[in-house]
């Protein structure tokens, strides 16, 4: 029972981390129709920039605050100066752009390896969040609870922003009818680039948050981004709430498989994906499928 509870919490913690990546990925896809395979690169970028800040200042909180800035700028620049112009000039289509970001994923991993080598790093857990707390008869690391709290808080904030604010209304309108939004005088290119940057910043934020519990290394983004892909496909590409539920499903599946069925550890989530694809190819929470 205790083991089960620990795994349950671990599952939620992993889910929240993956959610931070998946929500940006699905937001960018829903809005711009761009599948950003380089999303893992922003995760890596955030983690390393956070690492640099943490080493310089010795403060985890500053790292958490400043770390996501680099992925934000990089994401904004990628969309505004590369992807958007390419798409607009009709030079490249959506799938080409996905392939371009695929190259970017490897280029970033390579660049990080070039600058920092392939060693494993870590950011120290802040004093305030060290230690364990007694919870329902188990001792659970405080920092992992912090990750869960942060994930839930960001999910709630996103729901509020998207459902209740003017910016959210513009975003939803942009998903539904891009031409109409442009006609209403909204600079959609800037809005899109900002969203791209924001999604990238969330991925970078996840990178910093995960740094005290997972290792920081050059290929860290490539591993987690595949899990993220499974999440967005299971949740339905472009579906924000779906990505939250799917994060929980995938995170739980992965954690419980690792704990109770170690042989299946590496395929549990793919098996889940396959089952979902057989019965609902548009994703569990996706809209009705398109025909051709």
């Amino acid at each position, binding site marked *: 029972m205790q083991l089960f509870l620990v795994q349950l919490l671990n599952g939620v913690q992993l889910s929240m981390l993956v959610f931070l990546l998946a929500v940006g990925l699905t937001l960018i896809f829903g809005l711009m129709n761009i*599948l950003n395979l380089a999303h893992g690169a922003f995760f890596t970028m955030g983690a390393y920039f956070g690492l640099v800040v943490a080493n310089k200042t010795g403060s985890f909180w500053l790292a958490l605050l400043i770390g996501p800035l680099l992925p934000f700028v990089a994401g904004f620049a990628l969309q505004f100066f590369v992807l958007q112009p390419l798409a607009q000039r009709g030079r*490249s*289509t959506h799938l080409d752009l996905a*392939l371009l970001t695929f190259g970017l994923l*490897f280029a970033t991993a*390579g660049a990080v*390896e070039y600058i920092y080598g392939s060693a494993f790093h870590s950011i120290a857990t802040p004093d305030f969040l060290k230690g364990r707390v007694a919870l329902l008869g188990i001792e659970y690391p405080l920092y992992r609870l912090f990750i869960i709290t942060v994930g839930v808080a960001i999910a709630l904030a996103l729901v509020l922003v998207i459902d209740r604010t003017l910016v959210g209304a513009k975003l939803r309108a942009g998903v539904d009818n891009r031409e109409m939004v442009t006609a209403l005088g909204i600079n959609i290119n800037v809005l899109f680039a900002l969203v791209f940057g924001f999604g990238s910043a969330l991925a970078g934020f996840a990178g910093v948050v995960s740094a005290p519990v997972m290792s920081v290394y050059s290929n860290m983004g490539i591993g987690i981004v*595949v899990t993220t892909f499974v999440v967005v496909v299971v949740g339905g590409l472009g579906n924000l709430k779906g990505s939250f539920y799917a994060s929980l499903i995938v995170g739980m599946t992965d954690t419980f498989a690792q704990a109770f069925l170690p042989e299946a550890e590496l395929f549990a989530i793919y098996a889940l994906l396959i089952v979902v694809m057989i019965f609902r190819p548009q994703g569990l929470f996706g809209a009705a499928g398109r025909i*051709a």
Partner: protein
Amino acid sequence: MSAETTLGGSKWFDVLKRVPPWVSHRASAVWFLPLAASLCTLPSFASGYAMTLAVEVMIAGVFASGINLLTGYTGLVSLGQAMFLGLGGYGIAIGTALLGWPLWVSAPVTLVAVAAIAAAIGAICTRTRGVEFLLITLAFSQMFYGAAIKLRWTNGSDGMSGIPRPDLSLLGVNADSPSTFYYYVLAVAVFALVLLWRIVNSPFGSILIGIRENERRMMAMGYAVANYKIGSFALAAMVCAVAGILQSQYTYFVNPDSMSWQASGEGVLMVIIGGANVILGPFVGAAVFVVVKQALSLITDEYHLFFGIFFMLVVAFFRGGVLGAINTLIGKRR
């Protein structure tokens, strides 16, 4: 503008849709014959290093040709084809090294097994399209990659060694010698190419191209589009598996890295470099890729960095591939 842009098909696969018309011209025999002649006589004048490169180019070319059938002709962009490259290599390794079967049993069994697995995977993957298809093929290949690392009886991440080259003593030659192995790979590559050429130019191939151009219309015409997609997927997988078999014979071993998504990406890159949907395109792309990779390895250790940058540049600026670029040049001069 070339004809296919006026067909009104979806704009999704723009990179993969350039047919330099001159490739299909009869005039192509003018450059094809000297090429064929030099390929046949290569071992008599080339250095060992050049032969190694040629073998690598041909193996990569077969792999990329498999991807081209699926991606260039059927219009399904997959980032998971390396799983079949790996399955081919592992199939032959399990057959020969583990079960002790002779090669002429292992190879067909491997290909049939890969076709069956690919048909099952294809039946699931082809339920999606576009980027979802790309993601799910990627997920499948990661699953096999994970399995290959995890499985104890295939030596996990160390991979399997001791894969034999074909026994050609009947012909009085030894396949362990570089020049004999070169001819063996050349023969297989030419056979695969001719087979693919026949497939692409058959009614079956026309239907695949029809699916790429306008899937809805093909459905309306009464074709069982889903079955054709699965067929294309399985055929492409078999071609990739042939490349996997050659690859593992070339290096005498196979490891999970052959299934990594970087390997899949390399294959797609070769197809784009060469110009998708041209039968020789993947071989041209493979040649450029292998040479660039070799050159890079001479000047830098940071392969990933340059692979990534190279990939981005090709996708962004080099859409028609090498053959497309030559075509544009010729077009301008006229």
